[in-house]
């Protein structure tokens, strides 16, 4: 949804090329375009605003220093999300080892939660509209992340695969599983809702 606003600007390839040639304005434009969505993405991993800001600061300083050696990219957003995600996870692990991250935040770094427990919990609890949020929050973290990148950030499967450093098929599986789960459990309460609508 964000792309539409950018069509008046130079393309990613052009902008990236200018940046690699040391164009400060292109660099600033890149930061300005992506800072907010990168920050928001960062809040998926930690609520420590300072840590997210530090990671972003260091990421941009780093790519400026390395601008001559970075490769070309078809999507700056993909490149930044991938680098930023990598950096966030690294810093969080580092912080956790030093005991500066709460257990909760560290748990989010675990590759998969115990999904079976969640499933059991949801089977037994009748899912209603306001529970969808909860249902999503109980999905395995990687499914949640894929959903976020696909539907909040509007990235395509290829880009998500590269950002999360998994293959395309895994991304599709994550999305498919997540949606199937939500859809299936939703059927439980769509029927009464539907009747309500028709009876009006």
């Amino acid at each position, binding site marked *: *949804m964000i792309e539409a606003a950018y069509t008046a600007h130079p393309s990613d390839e052009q902008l990236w090329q200018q940046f690699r040639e040391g164009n400060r304005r292109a660099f600033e434009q890149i930061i300005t375009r992506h800072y907010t969505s990168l920050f928001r993405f960062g809040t998926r991993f930690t609520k420590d605003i300072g840590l997210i800001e530090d990671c972003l600061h260091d990421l941009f*300083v780093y790519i400026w220093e390395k601008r001559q050696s970075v490769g070309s990219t078809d999507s700056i957003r993909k490149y930044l999300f991938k680098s930023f995600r990598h950096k966030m996870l690294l810093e969080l692990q580092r912080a956790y080892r030093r005991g500066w991250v709460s257990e909760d935040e560290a748990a989010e770094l675990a590759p998969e939660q115990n999904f079976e427990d969640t499933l059991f919990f949801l089977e037994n609890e009748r899912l209603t509209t306001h529970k969808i949020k909860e249902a*999503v929050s109980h999905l395995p973290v990687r499914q949640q992340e894929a959903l976020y990148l696909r539907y909040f950030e509007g990235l395509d499967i290829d880009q998500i695969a590269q950002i999360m450093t998994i293959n395309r098929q895994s991304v599709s599986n994550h999305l498919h599983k997540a949606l199937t789960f939500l859809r299936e459990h939703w059927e439980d309460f769509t029927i009464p809702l539907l009747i309500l609508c028709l009876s009006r």
Partner: protein
Amino acid sequence: MKTFNHFGLTDFLEDASFRAWVFGEATDEVAWEWEQFPILHPDRAPVFKKAREILRAVEGDTFTVPAPRIRQNIRQIMEDTEPAAFEQPRPWYQSAPWRWAAAAAVLLMVAWFGWQRTRSLADPSTQVYHQLTAESKTPLDEVTNSTSKNRLVLLDDGSSVLLQPNSRISFPKQFNQHDRREVYLTGEAFFEVAKNPEKPFFVYADNLITKVLGTSFTVRANGKDQVNVIVKTGKVSVFTRNDHNRVEKQQSRQLIGLVLTPNQRALFHREDGRLLRSLVEAPELLDLPIQQPIFEFTSTPIAAVFRTLEKAYGVEIVYDAEVMKNCYLTASLDDEPLFEKLNLICGTLDAHYEQMDAKILISSKGCP
């Protein structure tokens, strides 16, 4: 005019215009059309609502910070990558890795990228070295390590320097006549500086000056394009020789200028004289054995302790293994100079040490 042939859940989810509306980014016109959708298509209203709920759930509890703060952060990035970034550095207490600055000691490395194995007198680092040592007003001692092993250099003030192969260091014979400790380096060395805030310690390597108020660090300087100052623990300040505030920075009792804290590094680009600061993304640059936390001893036989020190400092320790066979050490040593380590060890074991040539002689009556 937008078409609204949405039936399944993914029809909605995949529609960028629908997502923009849910996330409050749609134009008024598009927003109005989506608001009408459940009224015009009551049969599809549940799916519509479901898709909207899912998107909201996907957004989850993510958030952003206010726009002025984002603008400030972006300005900061632009300033810190500015070619003259070292003129107005970010205050150290705002810098990213300060949160990780726990230790008081300093492990610092000035590294050259573009390493040349066969250095000639023409390399800029060596040129600067010759120039600076020639200008020095005090008589200097010079140690050159042309061997393939590290060489331990002990300074008059109790600091120790582990000089790497193909490296050279000059230092005053005696520090106590001067109000600062200044050494000149070309090549690479690991420094453990004896604490003395009254007499700051300066390393001149290439165009960079590194200032420490105490403790330990490494300097590597032999290459071409960039000088790299890396801090492992503690704090140092770095500035260029051409810095016009240099005198103030050198004389200050505090560390001012570009202050580096753990896991930070300063990069000096020769061609344009820029000095930048960033995070160390590859801590393995600190790869000397001495930089590893190997000085943790728990009831360790003294022979093993001495072996560790010999290996770390490339020095020979002579002691009577038979007399000291019952001696065990429990201690956590870090980056204090070799002599301070020896003081601590000998203090614990009621032993004494003396230095003879490149050897350390330990005398002890043994342990009960």
